[in-house]
């Protein structure tokens, strides 16, 4: 279900790093040897033996990250991102695998479109890519896609992301029918009649600025509905990019009641609030919008305690001219692949809101579990999917430093702590800095 560029695997030795794998319970300074892309040995003072040596002293070696929510804009908007540029950006951000959303042009709603993407991934993808297919044809919310055939072709799961599944009956049928594919359904929760005309979170800031408000209940009533449907059908469900305290409360109640729901949250919703919109910078305009500070705090707490299992960037590239407009005219979405770890290390780990171990788990094993993928791990015999992190480094985010074709980052000019020094994805060294 994951596809990556074909090519020779690397022989590497990472020396002297603090090896930290929360899943395996490993936290020790040790060398790691990789033979032909597979972890072959963990031990002290391992000989190099002609392998490429990476100096890990003072660095943390962890399982590489998995991003469950990326917009690769291909097919249709290759000026904004391609499989090649998006996976290079992912490599630079420490990711070994990413999941691409189907809201492209054309929509990924047929085996033919999906097959063409898989073929491109085989020739272009620096890190492994999985593709989600649409729930409804054309994402129009009327007819189900041919989920059986799409799953056989290699779809990781199904979503109409970018749009909600508006009709309850269609969502109900999707939950029923997707069970034959054994692939998860992921939902973008938004009631469009409540969010209509909204460009930012409804609250004190929108009241003052006069920008159309988007109430948090536009998300949470849909979360409640979809959880009720999932409970009725006894099916699992993945909730995408949660942003509201009310949604977190609903998810927590549902999980306590035994409903199999997972969820993801973005770095920007964990770090920023609607106060950021006072800048009127279109790079803080996203869907769902940035919430109030009690929303942000609820999301951080849910990520910490595991109610929300995954960090997702919702990397959404946009062309410069589309974002260089007044706030209300700008499209929703920001990039995130290349800054996610540093942003969360700076704003969550350094202030001790969550531990480094928890962050690493939520960026790797958590999202893998949500989609039934094998989690990256540091163990002999496992494929090498590793990230080498410098937690001491300080750097300034600059527009010209991005591998992504788009520069619509909310972090341009920001000073961050923690930097990805190297990424090994599917046994290949795909990034060094």
């Amino acid at each position: 279900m994951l596809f990556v560029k074909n090519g020779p695997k690397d022989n590497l030795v990472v020396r002297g790093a603090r090896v930290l794998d929360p899943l395996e319970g490993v936290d020790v300074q040790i060398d790691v040897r990789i033979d032909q892309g597979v972890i072959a040995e963990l031990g002290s003072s391992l000989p190099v033996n002609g392998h490429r040596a990476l100096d890990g002293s003072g660095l943390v070696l962890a399982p590489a990250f998995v991003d469950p929510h990326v917009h690769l804009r291909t097919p249709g908007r290759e000026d904004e991102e391609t499989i090649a540029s998006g996976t290079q950006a992912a490599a630079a951000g420490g990711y070994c695998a990413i999941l691409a959303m189907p809201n492209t042009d054309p929509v990924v709603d047929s085996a033919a479109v999906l097959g063409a993407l898989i073929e491109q991934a085989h020739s272009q993808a620096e890190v492994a890519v999985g593709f989600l297919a649409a729930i409804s044809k054309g994402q129009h919310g009327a007819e189900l896609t041919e989920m059986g055939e799409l799953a056989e072709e290699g779809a990781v799961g199904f979503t109409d992301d970018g749009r909600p599944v508006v009709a309850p009956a269609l969502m109900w049928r999707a939950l029923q029918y997707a069970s034959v594919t054994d692939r998860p359904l992921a939902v973008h929760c938004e009631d469009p009649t409540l969010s209509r005309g909204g460009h930012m979170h409804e609250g004190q800031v929108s009241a003052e600025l006069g920008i159309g408000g988007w109430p948090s209940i536009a998300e949470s009533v849909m979360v409640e509905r979809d959880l009720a449907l999932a409970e009725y059908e006894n099916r699992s469900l993945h909730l995408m990019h949660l942003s509201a305290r009310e949604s977190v409360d609903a998810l927590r109640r549902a999980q306590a009641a035994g409903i199999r729901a997972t969820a993801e949250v973005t770095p920007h919703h964990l770090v920023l609030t609607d106060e950021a919109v006072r800048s009127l910078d279109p790079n803080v305009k996203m869907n769902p919008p940035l919430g109030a500070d009690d929303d942000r705090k609820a999301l951080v707490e849910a990520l910490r305690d595991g109610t929300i299992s995954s960090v997702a960037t919702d990397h959404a590239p946009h062309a410069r001219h589309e974002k260089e407009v007044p706030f209300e005219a700008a499209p929703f979405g920001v990039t995130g692949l290349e800054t996610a770890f540093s942003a969360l290390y700076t704003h969550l780990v350094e202030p001790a809101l969550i531990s480094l171990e928890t962050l690493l788990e939520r960026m790797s094993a958590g999202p893998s579990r949500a989609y039934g993928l094998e989690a990256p791990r540091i163990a002999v015999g496992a494929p090498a999917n590793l990230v080498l992190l410098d937690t001491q480094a300080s750097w300034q985010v600059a527009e010209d430093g991005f591998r992504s074709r788009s520069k619509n980052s909310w972090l341009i000019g920001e000073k961050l702590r923690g930097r990805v020094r190297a990424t090994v994805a599917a046994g290949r060294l795909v990034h060094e800095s």
Partner: protein
Amino acid sequence: MGDLHVMRDDLRPPAPPPKRHLISIADLSRDDVERLLGTARTFERSMEREMKKLPTLRGRLVINVFYESSTRTSSSFELAAKRLSADTMSIKASGSAVDKGESLKDTAITLGAYDPDVIVLRHPQIGAPQLVARVTDARIVNAGDGKHQHPTQALLDLYTIQEQFGRIEGLHVAIVGDVLHSRVARSNIQALTLLGARVTLVGPPPLLPRGIEAMGCETTTDIGAIAAADVVYVLRMQQERMQEGANYVPSLREYTARWGVTPERLRPGQKVMHPGPMNRGVEIDPRVADAADALIETQVRAGLVVRMAVLYDLLTTGPKPVVAQVPMEVA
């Protein structure tokens, strides 16, 4: 070329003061507001002379760019610039180009090529003035950006109240109607509270934005509350908000019955203001609009001198940044 050009620190001209704009009342201090109102008063006296033109801004260029329709704001800015002897140009964007952000940037760059001293901008979206400020060297006066701000309207309203009552501090102003969609209301809440007035917003619940109390005002849905105010400020009930399915109010008829400002709901002598254009018989009873206690025409007169004061203040108190610096050549 190839010579090394450096400048000795002691020869470097002092850093130019930051270029000033008038985008939001939030950018102003109480001192700024009082200075502007004082300047407007001076201009008002000069307008009483037979020869009304002042040479103050001769050789300056003021461009009015209006992406939305306007009568009083555009005409009063144009006349204000002319009374100060500035050259003026007025650009009206066609309705179809309004939502194309690209065209705003490109229009701004094009107009910027004429080196205007001031661009007066009205645009249906918040952030448009900042975007124009980024791509031109002109000072920007916001003549209305979406539902966000209309600072010169608030300044002329303060001027009108000040002239009427001799003060603003301690007065109670009730703002009635569609606050949600009103840039006039937002600028006035900030301006009135900045000068120490008490502000109460009155209207139907869907038109009172959630959280607006954080701006330092009170809210109520009870029209009876206007009787306690010194000034009743009536907002336009915008017909375009009455689209089917919007459901801000069930009907204009019901709005008028519950929130229309009528003589019966006012105390004798209560002053009434309206930013215009009025919908007589909807938000304001014609008898109220035409009564001696209505300050509506006074507001329009105040608009001219206040806008003269704004142009004068931006162009004389804050000099344009010096860009031509002659470097010293070192062998």
